[in-house]
């Protein structure tokens, strides 16, 4: 059984609506908000990995860079958020286009290494260019400003913003997957040579996918800085990129629910379990090892196969 069409959307909406009522306090709702912001980041990365077969280790660039852009313009240039937000998203997307040109010179491991190197360059700049970024101290926003006159300062109101953004991201990426472009993108993953021979422009398809991923990553980046009211070099760091990759692989690359599930699990382990267990990084590693050994394609496809009628397809 697969969750398709209306059932998927009904369940997803129900889950997002029920969450604020089900969680005991604002503290937990805050953690849920963190998880959903990262879910958008993971979804954006999955356009590259699950659909395009391009594994990136530098996706935190599109979280951290727009976060810095929004924070800096609002704090140091006194821009209103209505201006800072589109600017930050445009900047993140433009940088993704530039980095796409650089990264798409290679495939596979080479692609991974270039994205990793570009990510490290951005991290190094944020860390060392103290005059612009505040270095290790980062940039702090004292209070969450209202956007378009709407007060989003409370935990609950900001949760609604993030939940809506996640729904919009899911709808757009769902459409992308079913579209001719989505089919072409998956084609370049499986058979780039054949796609070329069929008359497709493989490089441009990959480029566009990369920019899409950068765009949705930048949305996550803006939400991230409004969520934490703080941005530091760690948002651009390799561990942040690796975490996003882990979310995708854990939940299941190439599925719509997988990256969301992965983001929730990792955020819960990181924030909730870490207050009870000291070695939570080991726990994260252990979870990952168990999941990929039992369900190599990730939790969501793995569980689907588990519950599927045994006669068909389930290995």
């Amino acid at each position: 059984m697969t969750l398709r069409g209306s059932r998927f959307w009904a369940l997803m909406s129900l889950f997002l609506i029920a969450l604020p009522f089900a969680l005991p306090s604002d503290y937990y709702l805050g953690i849920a908000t963190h998880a959903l912001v990262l879910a958008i980041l993971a979804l954006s990365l999955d356009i590259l990995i699950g659909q395009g077969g391009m594994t990136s280790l530098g996706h935190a660039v599109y979280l951290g860079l727009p976060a810095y852009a929004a924070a800096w313009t609002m704090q140091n240039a006194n821009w209103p958020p209505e201006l800072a937000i589109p600017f930050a998203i445009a900047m993140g997307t433009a940088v993704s286009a530039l980095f796409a040109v650089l990264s798409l010179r290679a495939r596979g491991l080479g692609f991974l290494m270039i994205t990793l190197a570009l990510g490290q360059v951005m991290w190094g700049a944020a860390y060392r260019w103290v005059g612009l970024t505040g270095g290790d101290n980062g940039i702090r926003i004292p209070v969450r400003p209202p956007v378009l006159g709407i007060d989003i300062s409370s935990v609950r109101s900001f949760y609604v913003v993030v939940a809506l953004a996640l729904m919009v991201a899911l709808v757009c990426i769902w459409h992308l997957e079913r579209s001719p472009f989505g089919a072409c993108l998956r084609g370049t993953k499986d058979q780039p040579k054949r796609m070329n021979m069929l008359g497709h422009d493989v490089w441009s398809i990959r480029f566009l996918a990369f920019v899409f991923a950068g765009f949705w990553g930048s949305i996550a980046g803006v939400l991230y800085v409004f969520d934490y009211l703080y941005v530091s070099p760690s948002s651009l760091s390799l561990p942040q990129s690796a975490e996003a990759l882990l979310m995708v692989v854990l939940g299941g690359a190439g599925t719509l629910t997988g990256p969301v599930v992965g983001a929730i699990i990792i955020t819960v382990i990181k924030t909730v379990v870490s207050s009870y267990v000291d070695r939570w990084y080991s726990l994260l590693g252990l979870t990952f090892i168990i999941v990929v050994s039992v369900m190599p394609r990730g939790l969501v496809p793995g569980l689907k196969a588990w519950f599927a009628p045994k006669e068909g397809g389930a290995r």
Partner: protein
Amino acid sequence: MSHFALEVDDISKRFGGLAATRNVTLRVKPGERRLLIGPNGAGKTTLFNQIAGDFLPDSGAIRLFGQEMTRLPTKKRVRMGLSRTYQILTLFPNDTLRHNVALALLGTEGGGWSCWSSLAAKRDMMARADDALAAVGLGDAAGREVAQTSYGERRRLELAMALAQKPKVLLLDEPLAGLSADERETVRALLEHIPRDVTIVMIEHDMDVALAFADQITLLNFGQVVLEGTRAEVIADPRTREVYLGH
């Protein structure tokens, strides 16, 4: 306007010390069925790769209906009417047969940039994909995934994808490779029914089928053309025996 459908004019290609293609000239008339034969490593597929644009020849020219295409990217050659199948199956295994053909149609017709509309809702394209599948006897299997089809069916899907593009010149790289006797007969009949407005250049080792199919035969060895002629001429020529038996 040249009166050749495909003209390969004195092309050469070296890979380091290996001369993969040596001064090969090939002139194929519109509607002709041309067979390329030669032992393994003779440079047949390498020649296909250059016609398709996978890599460029070091020297010489390639023309399609008189139009220069030696240095054009593959996608432009496809738009000019060139299609190709592969010896090693090159399909999209996780998708349905219908979508495999749809990718072929998107390649020639465009429309692949649409990010919002559903591919399945492109009814006209889906119908034409189904027609292309029906033409190779896979009409009932259109909704199945490639992973659930037999090897013989996949061979026919390869053919359906190329034919759906309505090519003017079709390159077939061993369309019968690995097929059973029954399946070979099915594919042979399909090839025979391809209309004569499609020019075909075929690499094939199954001589029974290939020789009957071909109008003209070109024998390659060590990257160069050894001889060219009708079936009777090539069979009778002692150099054919020499190349194959190496006596």
